[in-house]
């Protein structure tokens, strides 16, 4: 006797394949994404040659030291990109890191906007908003958003050693 089955084998696979596709599509539509590229910044400290003087104090990276690729959801999606620094493993609190956005990057979305972050923002160890992306009736995807970094507070009064930090960028909904 043939078993009582509501779905054929093909229907069974189509059903689950559809669910999978929906899940993937759902994530793609709803999730903001952020990719960070560019090169690590090794700050070129100027040698002191005159007794009594201090470092010039402020150093700037290349205007495109960090490149961000960010996308925000479809349909009136808004997202903010925040930034903070994370000692890795050692940083000195007298060394002040700042970041700013030096361009808009590239996008295929004509109605999307990217705003804020064009002047230096002092970084802390907690997230601070750097800029916002708004997507209207299309996926708001920006590539190669250039970020410039600044280091200030460099002084001989800071113990002489190597300091490292990670600059952490995070995208989230508003």
């Amino acid at each position: 006797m043939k078993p009582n089955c509501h779905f054929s084998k093909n229907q069974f696979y189509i059903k689950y394949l559809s669910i999978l596709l929906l899940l993937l599509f759902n994530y793609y539509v709803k999730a903001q994404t952020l990719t960070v590229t560019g090169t690590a910044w090794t700050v070129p400290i100027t040698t002191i040659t005159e007794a009594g003087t201090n470092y010039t104090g402020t150093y700037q990276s290349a205007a495109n030291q960090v490149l961000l690729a960010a996308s925000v959801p479809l349909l009136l999606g808004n997202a903010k990109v925040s930034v903070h620094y994370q000692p890795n493993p050692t940083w000195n609190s007298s060394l002040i890191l700042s970041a700013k956005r030096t361009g808009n990057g590239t996008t295929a979305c004509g109605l999307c906007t990217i705003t804020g972050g064009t002047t230096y923002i002092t970084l802390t160890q907690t997230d601070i908003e750097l800029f916002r992306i708004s997507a209207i009736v299309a996926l708001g995807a920006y590539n190669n958003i250039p970020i410039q970094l600044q280091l200030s507070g460099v002084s001989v009064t800071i113990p002489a050693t190597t300091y490292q930090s990670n600059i952490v960028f995070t995208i989230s909904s508003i």
Partner: protein
Amino acid sequence: MRDLNIIICIFSLLLSGTLLSQTTGSSSVSVTLPVVTLMDVEPTGNITLNFVSPTEAGLAIVNPAVNTTKWVNYSSAIAPAGLTRRITAAVNTIIPGVSIRVQAAAASGSGGGTLGTSSGLVTLTTTAATIISGIGGAFTGNGTNNGHQLTISLVTNTYANLSARTSTPVIITFTITE
């Protein structure tokens, strides 16, 4: 079979989240601050200190006026938990009957950090003597009116050892060290 498909669904869901919802990323910054040990005396140039003959029989020769034109400038960056620095002074020769003395004032001017402390009035010999100590990470500022003003003086000590002499150059060597 049904359980397997559910597991696949959950796994795919988790995987899709990992692949498509990356919301954070980082870039690194590195800065190396070197050890710095720089010191000089400003302004450059020699100073002249002349004893003056007495004008009245029975009086001692008159000591020269003290010189306060020289300033010690330094830049110092030390390693974490590193030793502090000090500045020493020594003369290349001793003039019999005469003491050459140096006193560093407290630091003033545009400097900052852990500046040194004066040792007070120090009579110089050919052996280096500390005139400023406890210098940590610090800078004094550059040029005159920055750093430690020096008061350099000549006085007689054992009068019997004095002898008339023409110009006698004496070199005072200042050194910054740990």
